């Protein structure tokens, strides 16, 4: 639960819907618009594994009939949290639908390298192309810091915006919104290099944008280029956000979920309202917001399974696979301790071999711990046998209130089920844990290690939290004795 990036299509839908609806903090120089924005033209195309690329594209032509308009020009691009798409050649600009279609066909469901990361392209966004003079391209960025929200603005937006930290005009809006800057202050700080004529239009837009940022609890919002084409008498303007990246505060779901959903409902997007086939009742007027995994880090089946289990309980269960072929696997309790373990493994020189990051905490039940451990173990056995064997850390700090014996019961059950495989894969198991009833827990796991003849070392609170890592990986010696009943 934290600030999480959202799809460009979702960000645009939320802005489009709420720009005229979110309450502005102070009155803007322009009269309140009598009408709301028309539905945005956002064709968001998803290509799951079990669907044919052409079938998805055919369906898109029905769902978004404007794609077939005569002589229309479009922009197509992958919508998967990829930065600097223009430079990576992942923009298809000013092309007819037929051309865009071919362009997408050639890339959908294919592996693409972006800088150093490989990932499969499976989500695209197609929008109408907006022709505009280059002097109407701006750059705006709002991001949250402890003291307030920084608004960064420059009149020279576009692909080659350069170092915005250096050249953008900056304005800090304090947390206390009663201190919100006046229209004049906004113009004087941010619009120094913009012709006076369109100040009102821009101040109005910035104020509205900021209102949405607050009302929908964004933590980051960047539009580049932002195209503002004022009308003749500069009382309003056509605003286009051509490219957008945004993060929402996931923890604010209980306050903003309804706003995020309604902006992305079929009605708000101007789509034909289709009754969901499964007849399920959704909690809001639109679909729940999605937080996609970073590019190249598609959730595996196992990660999705753990995420689902995590969502259903008060306990915390996290799993990220870093290198499925890695030799070093972790099964660590606690949000802090798990990072400490990853650090120790990396500093021992095994960053490349570190297979997973994960943690379980908040007193998960025996069954939950069992399923969590089984998932990690299964993944470990899927990676090929290594001549030097593998290392499994069953670690954790000194628990505050989790009953160690009972969570260890789940781990032990999982170990029992896979004992022959543990031996076959030559897995060294290193255990360190403390907290309520740890004596019982360590005694039990030690007994099982002996019984099943596993290569196991067990330590209690006398050992440093991650002290077993150098022992296991670099052959360091220690005076601290293994746990003994």
């Amino acid at each position, binding site marked *: 639960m934290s*600030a999480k990036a959202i799809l460009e299509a979702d960000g645009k839908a939320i802005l489009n819907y709420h720009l005229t609806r979110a309450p502005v903090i102070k009155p803007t120089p322009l009269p309140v618009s009598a009408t709301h924005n028309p539905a945005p033209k956002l064709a968001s195309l998803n290509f799951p594994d079990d669907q044919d690329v052409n079938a998805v594209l055919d369906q898109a032509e029905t769902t978004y009939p404007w794609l077939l308009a005569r002589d229309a020009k479009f922009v197509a691009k992958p919508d998967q949290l990829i930065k600097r798409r223009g430079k990576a050649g992942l923009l298809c600009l000013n092309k007819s639908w037929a051309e865009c279609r071919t362009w997408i066909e050639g890339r959908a469901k294919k592996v693409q390298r972006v800088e150093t990361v490989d990932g499969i392209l499976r989500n695209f966004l197609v929008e109408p192309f907006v022709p505009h003079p280059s002097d109407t391209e701006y750059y705006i960025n709002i991001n*949250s810091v402890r003291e307030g929200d920084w608004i960064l603005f420059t009149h020279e937006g576009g692909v080659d915006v350069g170092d915005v930290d250096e050249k953008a005009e900056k304005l800090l809006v304090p*947390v*206390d919104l009663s201190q919100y800057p006046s229209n004049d202050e906004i113009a004087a700080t941010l619009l120094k290099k913009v012709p006076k004529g369109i100040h009102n239009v821009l101040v109005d837009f910035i104020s509205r944008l900021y209102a949405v940022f607050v009302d929908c609890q964004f933590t980051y919002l960047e539009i580049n280029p932002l195209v503002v084409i004022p009308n003749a008498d500069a009382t309003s303007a056509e605003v286009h956000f051509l490219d957008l990246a945004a993060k929402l505060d996931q923890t604010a779901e209980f306050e903003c979920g309804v706003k995020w959903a309604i902006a992305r409902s079929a009605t708000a997007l101007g789509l034909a309202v289709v009754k969901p086939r499964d007849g399920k009742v959704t909690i809001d007027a639109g679909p729940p917001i999605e937080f996609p995994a970073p590019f190249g880090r598609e959730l595996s089946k196992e990660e999705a399974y753990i995420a689902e289990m995590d969502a259903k309980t008060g306990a915390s269960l996290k799993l990220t696979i870093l290198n499925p072929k890695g030799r070093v696997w972790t099964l660590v309790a606690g949000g802090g301790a798990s*990072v400490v373990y990853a650090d120790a493994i*990396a500093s021992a020189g095994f960053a490349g071999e570190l297979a997973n990051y994960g943690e379980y905490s908040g007193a998960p039940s025996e069954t939950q711990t069992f399923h969590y451990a089984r998932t990690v173990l299964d993944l470990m056995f899927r990676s090929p046998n290594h001549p030097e064997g593998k290392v499994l850390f069953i670690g954790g700090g000194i628990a505050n209130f989790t009953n160690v014996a009972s969570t260890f019961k789940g781990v032990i059950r999982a170990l029992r089920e896979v004992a022959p495989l543990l031996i076959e894969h030559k897995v060294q198991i290193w255990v360190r844990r403390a*907290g309520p009833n740890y004596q019982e827990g360590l005694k039990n796991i030690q007994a099982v290690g002996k019984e099943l003849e596993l290569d196991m070392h067990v330590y209690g609170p006398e050992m440093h939290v*991650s002290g077993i890592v150098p022992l296991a990986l670099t052959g360091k010696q220690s005076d601290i004795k293994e746990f003994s009943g």
Partner: protein
Amino acid sequence: MPSAVPETNGTPNGTTLGTSTDGGLSANDNIRRFAAPSRPLSPRAEHTLFHNKTRCFVYGLQPRAVQGMLDFDFICKRKTPSVAGIIYTFGGQFVSKMYWGTSETLLPVYQSVEKAMAKHSDVDTVVNFASSRSVYQSTMELMEYPQIKSIAIIAEGVPERRAREILHVAKKKGITIIGPATVGGIKPGCYKIGNTGGMMDNIVASKLYRPGSVAYVSKSGGMSNELNNIIANTTDGVYEGVAIGGDRYPGTTFIDHMLRYQADPECKVLLLLGEVGGVEEYRVIDAVKSGQITKPIVAWAIGTVASMLKTEVQFGHAGSFANSQLETAAAKNKSMKEAGFFVPDTFEEMPQMLAQVYQKLLKDGTIKPKPEPAVPKIPIDYSWAQELGLIRKPAAFISTISDDRGQELLYAGMPISDVFKENIGIGGVMSLLWFRRRLPDYASRFLEMVLMLTADHGPAVSGAMNTIITTRAGKDLISALVSGLLTIGSRFGGALDGAAEEFTRAYDKGLSPRDFVDTMRKENKLIPGIGHRVKSRNNPDLRVELVKEFVHKNFPNTKLLDYAIAVETVTTSKKDNLILNVDGCIAVSFVDLLRNCGAFSPEEAEDYLKMGVLNGLFVLGRSIGLIAHFLDQKRLRTGLYRHPWDDITYLLPNLASGPPGTEGRVEVSM
């Protein structure tokens, strides 16, 4: 994790074990009461957030955390508990009973913040356990009271904007916020926030009952316990420790507490456990560079692995995510080292480094070793001792039929999901709960058949009548149902039990059906289960035919039913309507079932009959009908029933009519 939902286990106001049983000592005698301080305490130095007279409120019903705080206070030899009261807005309860050592004390529970504040002017800090949804509103309310100087926010998942608004207001008012998303903090010998420090055995192991010389600030609450352990093992112990919480915008950050530690003469070594994400470590670096902080700082930022991974990973804490090179753990460690902090090469080497710093200060006399006080004894909680297997006691109750403690409800060992998967029906559930076994399918269906046949018998019978009259008197469903059920006994509905008993006895004695009928007549007894008002041999009761057909078709053995049918042949030869009625038929069939379905031993079968299981069948079945009569009367909106005078014969004695014995009392002699 932290929430305002009351915890059910460990609630101290349930049974208080061992207090009422020891000869004559009433529970009340063992309760310690604490008077409010007679005069206001003299103000403490600016840097002292907590001391050994700190009094707090706990917001939210968290009996386990409160008990942990009181236990800590007790072993620190505090005179008064640190918790002055509990604020629980959903509450209706006015005191909460807690242990104070081995005796008990009562903590007031307030429904409103205002009342609590008015009552306890000595309280200046709050441990806020409100959920992430409600913590904003409650913290804002708490900050309106000028007596509050610090608030710990435990909840995880507070929206970042709300967290910033809280910290902004707090800063303006000079209130110290610890959290959100933290376990809290601890000041050994003085005060402990909520669950900090873990269980009592760990608090003793890490010597947190008396102050040492090392003060720490950590981001992670879980790792703070690890720090307690490291500090206790390598130095003279913890002086104070605060976990500021893993969120992006903690209410106070490292620098706030570091400056306090610097100002506090008792604190000699500072320890900082930072983390990837955020820039707050740099403010400590600036303070060191500017000479604001002069005490030695041992420091480490965790999350160095992040820079070595190919992709971005969101670690356990919401704030542990580097948005720039500056925010990486590696950059922080490097900068801290350059600023003269004691930064080890890896976190594993931190204990040695801390030990070195400590030994040096010991040598140069900055730290003077203090005498070690006796290790306090800790009372162990009954429930925990039981979980550890240290104690036992005889259970007051035994149950052998169902269990709700596990992942799934069990009926006689069968998980509820299997009950539905195998579609065992209500008859199957009855066989599980009544007899603790699976009966053959036909037996379950027979039980269901009995329920269906006995469900109702019209409004005129006594049970239904009672229910109707009670309903019409405006009573609720349960009263109406029970008033109907109370008529069930040897006369109404009891024919089942009686029939089973008489027929079985006769059959087991080996009486021929004719002998049985003759014996009963000689004893002037009616045969229960024989006879019907209108039905006769030529006009058979269809319900009886249904039962007979089912039993003959499915039961492995129908000896008693056959016997009863033979008895019927004898009785109907005397009078046409002396047929085996539905009660009799069900009763004898049920005996056949118990005896011959193979699931019961003969002794068990007799036992169940003696327990009155047949009456149970009737009660269960007829409840369906009685509820129906209740609903029917309600639906019809019928009014209070009053029986007409003309339907009652009034025969009263006339006391004035003559000498005693001739008053004209109506007597019925038996």
